Every structure is written in C-alpha cells, then in structure tokens.
C-alpha cells in the first residue's frame, strides 16, 4: 500500500538513543518506501538528533525533556500541520519491527487506533508481581471502556488514523503514563474505535527494563492514578470537521 505509506508519518520519540536511532531510522526508511520518519529528540544530551538526521529522518528537537507524551503531541501536531493522515509511533530503541507497520495500517481501515501488542502470539515477554497486576488491571478496565479486548495497553507500537491524529493533536496528555493509559481513555470517550493486533517484538537492543518490586508497586500506583484521572476528566470533543 504505497499510497497509504506516503500519507503516513512515523513518529519516533527518542531520548539519548544515539546508539540505536540511526539504524532504526534506516530500517524504517528502507522497509517502508515513501514513508516520512520524524524523530522527536526529547531533550537528549547526546548525538541522537544528528544521528537521526544523518540516517535520513526529519528531526524536531525539544529544548528540554517532555516525556514520551510531550514528544508524541509534537508528532501529532506536525502530522496535522503537514497533511499526514496517519501517525505510527515506533520506539527508537529498535524493539519494534518496521515491517509490521503495514499490518497496523491495514487494520486502521476498521479502527482509529491500532495497538501492536506483544502478548498474544509468542509469550516471550513475561512480567510478575505488582507490574503484572497493574497490567492486567489496566487491560481489564481499558478493555471495558474501549469495548474491545486489549491486553497490552502500554505498548509503544501504535498506529493512529486521521480522526485520532486530529483528536490527539489538540488533546494529548503529556503526563507520565498519560501517553498510553489516558490517551486510550480520551480516545474511547471521544468515540474512537481501538483494536489490537498481535505483533512480534524484539528484545530491546539498548537500555534495560526496570524490574524491581518497589518500582513496580510505584508503577501500579501511578498507573491507577492515571487511569482514574483519565476517567474523571471531561470528555474531549473531536475538533471541528472531524466527526
């Protein structure tokens, strides 16, 4: 679907990813012909921006760190201002396979948001304890809100269709965990359709996931809070001409 790809913006939030960002950008551009790749340098202190630029991505540099939510908001605004219909969020650490992007885009025909999930399919990704409770709690609550089965609600691999791009360009939460949990609540309440698609994912190439019980407990607390606030907030209205 070359036409689809030309109207699609790949947004990669990147914080100090100079080691991996260039190869991820190159893989995206060589796998997905005609696609535009925007790397949001989220206040990195290393050469992330110039590495991404060298690899052929457009680069927007935030003057200081805003978090994934802040970076994505910029991506949605850029997409809207520059006439892109779809936004696909891809992590800059190489966890996601760019070759899966067309699969996500294909599902956008019946939905506004497609989440690439790592659970269904191969079960190589395992979590335990409070983090697992947090994830299953989020999954069950968000599934109910979105009227569809969602298992991996904090996945960073997502495709957003035109309606979602318009909604998120003006309404994207920049708080911690807001970019995943709260964004899904906002979208559901605004009447957008969310689906999930199982996609294979790689082990992360750089950095390491934080897995200790205390951090997981804090994560559970913050996730619940993000969910609660998302539910309590007034419903975001779709911007003009987007109904």
């Amino acid at each position, binding site marked *: 679907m070359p036409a689809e790809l030309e109207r699609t913006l790949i947004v990669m939030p990147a914080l100090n990813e100079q080691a991996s960002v260039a190869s991820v950008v190159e893989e995206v551009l060589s796998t997905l012909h005609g696609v535009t790749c925007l790397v*949001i340098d989220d206040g990195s202190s290393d*050469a992330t*921006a*110039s590495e991404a*630029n*060298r690899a052929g991505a*457009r*680069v*927007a*540099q*935030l*003057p*200081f760190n*805003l978090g994934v939510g*802040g970076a994505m*908001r*910029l991506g949605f*605004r*850029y997409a809207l*201002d520059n006439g892109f219909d779809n936004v696909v969020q891809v992590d800059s650490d190489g966890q996601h396979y760019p070759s899966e992007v067309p699969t996500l885009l294909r599902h956008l025909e019946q939905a506004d948001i497609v989440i690439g999930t790592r659970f269904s399919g191969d079960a190589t990704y395992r979590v335990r304890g409070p983090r697992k409770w947090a994830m299953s709690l989020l999954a069950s609550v968000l599934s109910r809100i979105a009227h569809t089965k969602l298992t991996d609600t904090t996945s960073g691999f997502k495709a957003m269709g035109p309606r979602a791009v318009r909604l998120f360009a003006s309404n994207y939460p*920049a708080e911690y965990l807001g970019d995943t949990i709260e964004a899904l609540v906002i979208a559901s309440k605004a009447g957008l359709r969310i689906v999930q698609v199982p996609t294979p994912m790689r082990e992360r190439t750089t950095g390491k996931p934080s897995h200790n019980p205390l951090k997981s407990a804090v994560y559970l607390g913050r996730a619940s809070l993000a969910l609660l606030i998302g539910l309590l907030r007034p419903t975001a209205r779709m911007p003009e001409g987007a109904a």
Partner: protein
Amino acid sequence: MTVASYILGVVAALLVLVIVIEMLRRGKLRERHALWWLIAGVLALIAGVFPKTLEWAAHLVGVQLPTNLVFFVSIAILFLVCLQHSAELTTMETKTRALAEQSAMQELRIRELERQAGLGDRLAADESDAS
C-alpha cells in the same frame, strides 16, 4: 498577656506587612501572589492590637483556646497559598510545554527551508563540528 508578648504580636504583624508592601513596591512580588500575605498580615495586626477580637472570634466559632484559632487560620492560609502555587505551576508547565513544542516546530521548519534554499544543514554541520 504580658506587655512584651503584646508588643511582639504587634511588631511581628507590622513586620509582615512592611515586608510584603516593600516587595510589592519594588516589583518583587505580584499583587495576586501578595493577596494572601496581606490578608494574613492584617489579621495578625488586628489580633495583635486588639486581643479581645481574637477571643471574640474564638468564642464565635466555638474554639476554646484563642491561640488554637490562630493556628487553624495560619494553617488554612498556608494551605491555600500552596494550593494556588501548585495550580499556577501547572499552568506555567503547560505554557512552557507549548513553547517548547512551538520552538521545536519552528526550528524544524527553518532547517527544512534552509535545506531547500541550499544553505546546507545545520544538524549535519553540528555533527562535523563535534567530530
């Protein structure tokens, strides 16, 4: 109440008012932020000069020890000030974030315009400078 404690109360209240007004005068404090401090200073001055009003007010709201009313009102004012500051911090953060987004967008746009105009690429130039 001794004379010393009476004087202490009045002087402390006057000091608060003098400091707040002087800061306002020098532009070190904006009016909206000074409001709570002025209210606190005036209340302290009234209670300091006329201790009877404090006893009357305590009796009115059913507080047995007038000093407890002082503590309660002080804490309430500090609480409101903190809450106001948190709310304003949130507004400031929202504005800062919007500015950061706008600055990033404009920088990207300038870079693309410069590239189209054949002025070279500053990010690439930065890289060669660094190496």
